[in-house]
């Protein structure tokens, strides 16, 4: 995690990682299309994509967080807490709008607490989110007493199950957001600042970048996205429960780092994350539909992560001078 000062050079191709992941994705698609009949059919792809969107939305926030050299382990738990708040508010007020808003607000608050602890107390993000990872989930469990809330009506579930020209609605939401995030990252000062913070926080501070404020909003955003993902999740399964989003954090981080965002900060982009997400998703589908073995899926995803990054290191990095 310590190799921040790797020298680039004038003629380097800076999209190696994306290329490697893209090629891998193509290989997986081709092999799967050949071995599993109907694998590439747009209809089934779109239908099965619905499990992707919550991750994808979380991954947008996580990309930014990891880009600054931080990490947010609490997103899954934030989802759980947001879902419980949604359920509580919905059952007590009967209003879906109020419930949805409080769901998002909970996400934002959870993120803000992370951000506040990280930026004000100057604690390491890993520690803070490790603590809130347990805390948020625990609050959700305690508050809901482990019960689940369900039956929110078909109107609501169409938020997640509806589609727009065949594309699931969450997918549309994600695409719009992804474009927004990509533009933010590459074309706005704040996007550039995120990278600067990731590479060298101290120098960023000396350049007049409001490091702490950006950090705070970054984690708040990540929380807000978790709230949104939670909302979609709840709508899709028509259940709100404290275990919503369990284990999401590791899957999301896997996708983001597979997409080439450097865990030590500074490097990464939305396209890479998107490719990482797709690669994992398609591989899982392929393994699941071809071998019908969940344990094999774990093995393949784990090895894929290592091999993809290894391949990138071998191809794109010249041996040390």
């Amino acid at each position: 995690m310590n190799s921040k000062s790797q020298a680039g050079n004038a003629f380097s191709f800076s999209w190696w990682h994306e290329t490697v992941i893209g090629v891998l994705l193509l290989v997986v698609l081709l092999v799967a299309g050949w071995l599993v009949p109907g694998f590439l059919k747009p209809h089934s792809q779109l239908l099965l994509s619905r499990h992707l969107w919550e991750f994808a939305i979380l991954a947008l926030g996580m990309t930014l967080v990891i880009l600054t050299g931080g990490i947010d382990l609490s997103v899954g738990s934030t989802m759980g807490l947001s879902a419980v708040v949604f359920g509580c508010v919905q059952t007590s007020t009967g209003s879906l709008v109020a419930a949805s808003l409080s769901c998002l607000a909970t996400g934002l608050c959870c993120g803000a607490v992370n951000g506040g602890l990280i930026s004000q107390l100057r604690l390491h993000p890993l520690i803070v989110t490790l603590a809130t990872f347990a805390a948020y989930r625990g609050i959700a469990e305690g508050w809901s007493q482990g019960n689940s809330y369900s039956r929110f009506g078909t109107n609501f579930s169409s938020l997640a199950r509806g589609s727009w020209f065949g594309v699931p609605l969450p997918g549309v939401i994600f695409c719009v957001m992804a474009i927004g995030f990509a533009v933010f990252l590459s074309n706005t000062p704040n996007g550039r600042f995120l990278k600067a913070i990731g590479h060298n926080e101290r120098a960023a501070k000396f350049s007049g970048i409001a490091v702490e404020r950006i950090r705070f909003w970054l984690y708040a955003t990540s929380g807000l996205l978790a709230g949104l993902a939670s909302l979609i999740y709840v709508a899709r399964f028509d259940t709100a429960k404290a275990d919503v989003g369990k284990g999401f954090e590791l899957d999301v981080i896997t996708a983001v780092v597979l997409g080439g965002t450097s865990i030590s900060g500074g490097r990464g982009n939305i396209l890479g994350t998107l490719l990482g997400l797709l690669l994992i998703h398609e591989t899982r589908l392929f393994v699941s539909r071809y071998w019908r073995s969940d344990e094999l899926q774990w093995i393949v995803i784990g090895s894929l992560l290592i091999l993809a990054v290894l391949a990138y290191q071998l191809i794109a990095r010249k041996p040390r001078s």
Partner: protein
Amino acid sequence: MTTAEAVIQIRGLRKSYDGVHALRDINLDVAQAEIHAICGENGAGKSTLIKMLSGIVRADTGHITVSGTQLLTGSVQASESLGIAVMHQESAAFPHLNAIENLFVGRELTRCGGLYLNHIAMKSQTERLLQRLGVSVDLRVPVGELPLAQRQMVALARVLSRNCRLLIMDEPTASLSNRESQTLLRIVQQLQISGVTVLYVSHRLDEVFQIADRVTVLRDGRHVATHRIADVDRQQLICDMVGRSIEEQHRPRAHATDDSAVILDVTQLTRCGVFEDISFHVRAGEILGLTGLVGAGRSEIARAIFGIDEFDEGEVRVSGRKLKGGSVQDAMASGIGMVPEDRQHEGLILPMSVGENLSLAMLRGLTHWGLIRRRAERDLTDAQIRDLSVKAASSRIAAATLSGGNQQKLVLGKWLARKPKVLILDEPTRGVDVGAKSQVHGLIRNLASTGMATLLISSDLPELLALCDRLLVVRNGRIVGELQGRTATQEAVLSLALPDAAGLQLREAQQ
């Protein structure tokens, strides 16, 4: 001197980084027990040459022979086994380890057949070495918490602790003030007497003339000349380095008038335990120098003004407006800019490109509907690269690949682009070559004449005397005196800067 006596023979050494020639066909002989200086502009290839000798960088072609044995470039161990010890340009310390541990990393003193660390021996050796260097360093404190100068001395001690036959030093005095530099030079001379060969890289020509036996000049990766020091004068050397003669400006500039507006006004600024009761003002067009020994607290005063650190009491005003303490954004908004002391960690974001670094501090001013205007950004950075003549292949390469001096220019350019009202410069010419230095000086003068207020912190007394209208001397976190740039002398400054006993002696001697 025939090649037969040479300890180091360098033949046809080449190195290029992706088309950038750092070194081309270098041939060099260094004799036994000689102090051989290497000079050259920023980016001439000095550090590259040294990195090759120390085994960090592999040569493309060519070879190096040390005392008749061919050196395998690219292996630190190989170099070490030939008795080469190196003090690198950018401090190679381990910030979390204390001085003792730093000194012996990689070749710890052990007992019981190399198994067990010999703490006592290491401690006493460290103490002995540091005493010899005339520094007192808290041995328990992690080196990262020590001031730069002390860190540098620890690095020197590290090199000395190794009984080397060949000592290589890459700008060892860049972060030292005059006094420590003298200690260091004395030690180098002692080493020479005991038979050690020294390769000495420095931009401070005075030092070169003081200790070197011979001097080699590199330019653009090429070997230009090797002179006996007796055969060459300063002008000649400079001419070799930059390819033309430049006039070193030592004459004071036309001073600012006393009635121009006060831009920066600092009153009774205090940060407990660091500095106390700091009051001064800087007028438009004025250059105010802040001097003192290393560790006196100058950098911290600057940092507090710029809002990096919070302060406990006092206030800072810019053109009458009071600044919020501890907010860099507020300081920048009211027109302060600051070139920090440590360019590698504070000044630049090394993995980012030259262009991105240059525009970083003023990116918000380059937007349209919240989006960065690429064109405007490129124009700005190209202009800066041109104006400061930064030696970089393009504005898209990483700042990390630039030579030390060029990196320093980048930091300057980053702030000049903002056209600040007040510019705080903390050691702006550290590690900058003579040519660039006079260029930087010219820049500072020009900017001052356009009405910018400048606070200049430097350990380089001649530089301060040449540039400043007024000089404040800081000792122990307090301002102990003010001198007029016109009349100040090095002795006067030193007598104020030195701690009480020694300073008193000096002050008495002067009277």
